[in-house]
């Protein structure tokens, strides 16, 4: 699946998008975040406070316990500050 990163999540990881094949036991948004956090220093820094980082599945807001099966695009980003 395609993973997107925005704002300081993007800066800490050092890329804005990548293709990721998550193992089968990674079933939820929170499990995917934990899996990504183990990929390196920047990732660990980005997901240091996992409850702060928000996610969207196929361009809709998703909670940490949302299942990721079948998702085409998952995004991780900080709390929003538009408006």
């Amino acid at each position, binding site marked *: 699946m395609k993973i997107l990163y925005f*704002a300081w999540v993007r800066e800490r990881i050092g890329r804005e998008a990548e293709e990721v094949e998550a193992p089968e036991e990674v079933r939820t948004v929170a499990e995917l975040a934990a899996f990504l956090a183990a990929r390196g220093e920047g990732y660990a820094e980005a997901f240091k406070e996992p409850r702060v980082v928000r996610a*969207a599945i196929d*361009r809709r807001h998703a909670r940490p316990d949302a299942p990721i099966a079948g998702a085409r695009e998952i995004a991780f980003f900080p709390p*929003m*500050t*538009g*408006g």
Partner: protein
Amino acid sequence: MPAAAPPDDRFTVRIQAEDFDTAAEVAALSAGRVDIGAVVTFSGLCRADDAGDSAPNGSRLVALTLEHYPGMAEEEIRRLVDEARARWPLLGATVIHRHGRIVPGENIVLVVTASPHRGAAFDAAAFLMDWLKTRAPFWKLEERAEARSWVAAKEADDAAAERWTAGTP
């Protein structure tokens, strides 16, 4: 005389880098209609001391750069407009949110709502702004003389969004 547009044509969401003309947007929303009795407009501007309470050494804001999630930004605001239409008898709404680098004094966001009576237009505009701030995928990067920093989300914005929460989708 052109025929009046069907109602759905009066609900517009645009994400754009360029500025917008508030008066022209208001005029477009109500042009050729006689059923609209109230139009409420909210404009959000870039303030020179934006987030000044968190500014290191009080240095002046030079610019904001708004990052967004292309695709989702428009889709999410459309969902908020749909939710507003489900709650209030709206005859039209226009939401425009800019992205990219914006300097103090420039427009950032526009919300225009139209309804037969003022109550719905006022409430729907406030609702759209409150939910937009906490749900639309935009992030502000502050540029000051000495540093660049991401604006932190405010608890006050979450509280403002939650006052509408009965019946959250």
